[in-house]
């Protein structure tokens, strides 16, 4: 069983090495763990630093967005022969130790997709962020008719079966909500796993702005109107 951890990164030179180093080396039920870093057109040397730390580093020639980088990561994972794909944020806000719990429902055939939810253990999370997340959850539910407690979480796991069925068209952050739509459209089994979030000064700066929320909303409507879901 091969686990591929996809990390989309944009200008994360200060933390990317640490994030790669902290990735789990061994998980029960998994034979090999392969990190795939997708540098989304960084200008701060993220690619070189990541390349010195791990084998599979993909470079986007221009900055497109987290959705595009994640989709590229998925394609790379498929080529590598992934049985399970996990996505993590590159800013170090996710605890790599949570990966084992995140993939458990997939290993036990209880789920096709799992979402690491920050909302079931939101201790330490800024109040504004909690409010923003609930707003995005509500909007995601309204548009894609599927309720999840953390629609914007970047920590997710996908089975091979799920990856075969899902298709993504998002370029930016709207990929988080599009994934929920894809789960609903393909009638995939979903499990939510509580995760710990490490809020450092750095990860707080790199978070999404409320303006991005508006952008995500318009893109979600566009995806819905395109007739895919």
């Amino acid at each position, binding site marked *: 069983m091969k686990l591929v951890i996809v990390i989309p990164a944009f200008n994360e030179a200060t933390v990317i090495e640490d994030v790669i180093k902290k990735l789990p080396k061994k998980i029960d039920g998994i034979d090999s763990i392969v990190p*795939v870093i*997708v540098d989304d057109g960084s200008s701060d040397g993220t690619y070189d630093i990541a390349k010195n730390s791990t*084998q*599979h*580093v*993909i*470079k*986007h*020639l*221009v900055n*497109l967005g987290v959705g*595009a980088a994640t*989709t*590229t990561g998925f*394609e*790379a994972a498929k*080529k*590598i022969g992934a049985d399970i794909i996990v996505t993590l944020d590159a800013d170090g806000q996710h605890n790599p130790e949570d990966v084992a719990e995140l993939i458990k429902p997939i290993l036990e055939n209880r789920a096709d997709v799992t979402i690491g939810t920050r909302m079931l253990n939101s201790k330490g999370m800024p109040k504004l962020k909690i409010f923003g997340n609930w707003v995005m959850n509500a909007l995601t539910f309204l548009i894609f008719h599927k309720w999840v407690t953390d629609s914007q979480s970047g920590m997710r796991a996908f089975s091979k079966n799920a990856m075969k069925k899902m298709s993504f*068209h998002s*370029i930016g952050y709207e990929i988080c909500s599009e994934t929920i739509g894809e789960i609903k459209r393909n009638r995939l089994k979903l499990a939510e796993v509580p995760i710990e979030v490490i809020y450092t000064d750095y990860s707080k700066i790199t978070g999404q702005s409320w303006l991005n929320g508006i952008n995500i909303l318009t893109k979600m409507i*566009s995806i819905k109107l395109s007739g895919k879901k």
Partner: protein
Amino acid sequence: MIIISAKIIAVLVGLTVISKSYHDLKKHYESLVMFLFWLFTWSAIIAATILPDVFLRLADKVSKNGIGVGTFAGIAFIFLLFITYRVYTKANRLEKKLHDMVMKLGLKEIEKEE
């Protein structure tokens, strides 16, 4: 004061767009037809801002010929919405093509390694 500020802003925006369009024409990023289109459009906007009386008189004349200012504004609004829609769909298509291209190039490294 507000009217004067609005006039200044309109003139500045207009001149910026015309100079940008001229710059793009010189660099062969834009065609002559496109440059003339923007030149005419923004010159008209600047003129309408500076000389509103002339345009009001013109609107009166047009109204007498059977087309009201409201109808004209409605047609202009629909035209603007159409342009917005075209730009939006084109940008989306280009974004998708760009992503496919960037992804293919990026994945070549993985293919070499595997």
